[in-house]
């Protein structure tokens, strides 16, 4: 088991191996993202019954919740990749951490925008400075901070290091986001989905949401893979295997 793990680690740290493996994955990922998004959105927009309190505005949930979940997962993944880089100096981990930041920020922005738009008909306001919304806005600024500090450093390596440290410090914000709706009074409704309790949602509403969550995570994987492949091409541009690729 341990041997297998170290073997996988060394493989993953090889940019060429990652590039070739993910090259085979990309078409499958694209197909899975498209199919799951079409199925999820069709069920969510056309077949899920309207909410008895919120009417049809609740259909925003099918992008809002997946985007908000992903923005937090992506942040954790970015911090873990940063830690791997700091501890073992694995370059691939630094590149992955770097490319996650703009993608995670995009999903965080989607969650904030759709949340604000959903808030207007539901709460009567676009924005309140309560714990959930503020901690989510902080997440967006953490992403921006990680992106900025990377560019601000003199060398690329120093940029990766500083970005990883900031990402790790910012991890404290993640449990704050999660528990903000329980610790403080808020307009935001509590979690729709929990791992421990039976879902309170009707299955016709729940299924599209679950499909959209899967679709969003697959889409994120696709975007991170595409961006990481570009990082690899750039950093390995003087290696023989990339030269061969360029000539073909």
């Amino acid at each position, binding site marked *: 088991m341990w041997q297998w793990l170290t073997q996988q680690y060394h493989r993953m740290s090889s940019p060429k191996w990652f590039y070739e493996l993910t090259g085979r994955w990309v078409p499958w990922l694209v197909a899975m993202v498209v199919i799951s998004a079409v199925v999820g959105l069709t069920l969510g927009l*056309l*077949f899920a019954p309207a909410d008895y309190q919120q009417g*049809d505005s609740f259909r925003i949930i099918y992008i*809002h919740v997946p985007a908000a979940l992903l923005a937090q997962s992506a942040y954790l993944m970015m911090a873990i990749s940063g830690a791997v880089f700091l501890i073992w100096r694995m370059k691939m981990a630094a590149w992955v951490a770097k490319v996650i930041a703009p993608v995670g920020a995009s999903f965080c922005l989607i969650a904030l925008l759709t949340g604000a*738009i959903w808030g207007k008909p539901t709460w009567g306001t676009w924005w309140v400075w309560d714990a959930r919304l503020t901690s989510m806005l902080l997440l967006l600024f953490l992403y921006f901070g990680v992106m900025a500090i990377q560019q601000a450093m003199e060398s690329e390596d120093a940029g990766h290091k500083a970005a990883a440290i900031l990402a790790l410090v910012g991890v404290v914000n993640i449990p704050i986001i999660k528990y903000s709706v329980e610790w403080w009074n808020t307009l935001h409704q509590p979690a729709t989905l929990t791992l421990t309790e039976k879902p309170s949602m009707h299955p016709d509403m729940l299924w599209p949401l679950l499909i959209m969550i899967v679709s969003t995570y697959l889409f994120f994987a696709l975007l991170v893979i595409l961006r990481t492949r570009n990082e690899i*091409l750039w950093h390995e541009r003087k290696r023989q295997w990339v030269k061969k690729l360029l*000539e073909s």
Partner: protein
Amino acid sequence: MEFASLSEFIAMGKHGLYVWLSYGLTALIVAINVALPLLRRRRLMKEQAQRLRREKRHASTT
């Protein structure tokens, strides 16, 4: 199917503006995220292939 007609679907109860604004903005951000890595790859491949050809030419003349 929850909606009897296309106009009902677009109206989304009285919430059409909010629903479609949300989905529209999301589609825009998603499209940008798809386009950026594809464009970067195309430029990268072109530039590096050019550099490689230049270097080869240079090596053969000196």
